[in-house]
């Protein structure tokens, strides 16, 4: 009888799996960018009540929320080539649907998924910004764009960071489905290593450890960013050199 658990196999496979971590991180990063940009666009169209775009955004969010990530990945995997083929037939374009690298499906599916959830986090963050500061910005004559850049965005970011951090962690874990469209990331590589030695629990422990560590540090990073952004709220009053605050002198002058 073979070993119940092959510790050496687990240790040997680890570096071979870890080698593909950059692929996992690449998918995470690109999907995150897609998710943030599209999520912001959806959130803004909803906040500013832009007709058509707003309804499209809401429909989109509802659709994604009800679609399991696995299903969404297959929909893009089979849907994108179909769409391009349709364009080819309709407009005589020459997209080669076979030359699309599998990574692209992972970017698109995970990015689209992330965007829907980000849009909710971003919208609630923007809506939570203190209205009084926005009024102050208006009253000093800032344009809408200036108000957004100088007042709304910095505050909304602080509020959104914990939620967006969670989203990114979800995204990292979501990348583990990319192997289904033949992307070779740490998950796929774990499966390959596992089949090679016909030992599976060992490689899945390896891959779990990698996900744990990456997610742990991502969470820490989000916390660090939040703290850094909040520093104006966390500083304590400085030691007062002149506790008498010179308004008293003004009183005296006035009296």
């Amino acid at each position, binding site marked *: 009888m073979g070993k119940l658990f092959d510790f050496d196999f687990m240790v040997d496979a680890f570096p071979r799996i870890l080698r593909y971590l950059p692929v996992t991180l690449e998918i995470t990063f690109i999907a995150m960018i897609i998710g943030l940009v599209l999520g912001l666009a959806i959130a803004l169209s909803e906040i500013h009540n832009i007709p058509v775009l707003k309804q499209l955004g809401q429909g989109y969010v509802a659709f994604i929320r009800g679609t399991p990530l696995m299903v969404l990945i297959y929909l893009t995997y089979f849907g994108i080539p179909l769409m391009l083929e349709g364009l080819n037939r309709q407009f005589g374009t020459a997209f080669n649907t076979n030359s699309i690298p599998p990574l692209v499906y992972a970017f698109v599916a995970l990015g689209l998924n992330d965007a829907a959830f980000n849009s909710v986090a971003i919208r609630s963050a923007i809506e939570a910004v203190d209205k009084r500061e926005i009024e*102050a910005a208006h009253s*000093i*004559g800032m344009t809408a764009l*200036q108000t957004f850049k100088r007042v709304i965005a910095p505050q909304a970011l602080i509020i959104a960071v914990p939620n967006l951090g969670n989203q990114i962690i979800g995204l990292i874990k979501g990348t583990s489905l990319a192997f289904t469209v033949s992307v070779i990331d740490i998950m796929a590589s774990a499966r390959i290593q596992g089949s090679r030695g016909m030992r599976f629990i060992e490689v899945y422990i390896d891959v779990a450890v990698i996900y744990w560590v990456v997610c742990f540090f991502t969470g820490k990073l989000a916390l660090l960013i939040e703290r850094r952004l909040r520093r104006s709220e966390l500083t304590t009053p*400085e030691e*007062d050199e002149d506790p008498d605050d010179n*308004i008293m002198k003004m009183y005296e002058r006035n009296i």
Partner: protein
Amino acid sequence: MQVTALKKSFGKTVVLRGIDLTVPDGKVIAVIGPSGSGKSTFLRCLDYLEKPDSGTIALDELVIRADQAHKKDVLALRRGTAMVFQQFNLFRGRTAKENVMEGLVQVKRLSEKEAGEAAEHYLNEVGLANRMNYYPRQLSGGQQQRVGIARALALEPKVILLDEPTSALDPEMIGEVLVVVGKQAKQGKTMLIVSHEMDFVREIADEVVFLDNGLVLEQGPPRDLFINPAHERTRQFLARVFQSFDYVI
């Protein structure tokens, strides 16, 4: 600044029924009236923080008709005025100095250095020379409001709008804010102030406007309006406001 027939409703509730008011250069006009009379809404309309339904607002050569106001006009109006808010409305992520600098750098396009110097000058003006680098949450209410006043002054507006600047303050802090406002009034700043501090209004205002139910009921120098009001409604209001002093005497 000249306001003509300004009207504003929230849904079915009519708040302003057509307000006419002139704020001459260098004068201090105080708006008083019972709560719900539309004082704050009126002031906020003048800075387009509320959009008036109809009427005109003229600030020197700039004339805005409420029903056809362009973004550009609204911006010009806001840049010609400055607002001091009841709740201070400071930028919480910025220090006192940065609060004052913000409009100078972003709107007036001054360099950081020029804006910094101006901010220091105006913070000194309101007695906060030694609080430049404090964040709003490190300041008392009275100090925060004085930062708000410095922020307004620094923009060198044609008219300063003050919306109940002492209503959110503890009694012991009201004095310091009034001293600062009074000093600016004496220096000839043009101001439109909504206030419940009747003694203060009596002292600094050139004209007092009594607003009731969305209309200017009466207007006159404080001496006349406080001592000899023309309308019964004004008399009732003043009697109620000054009632508290009877107990003291």
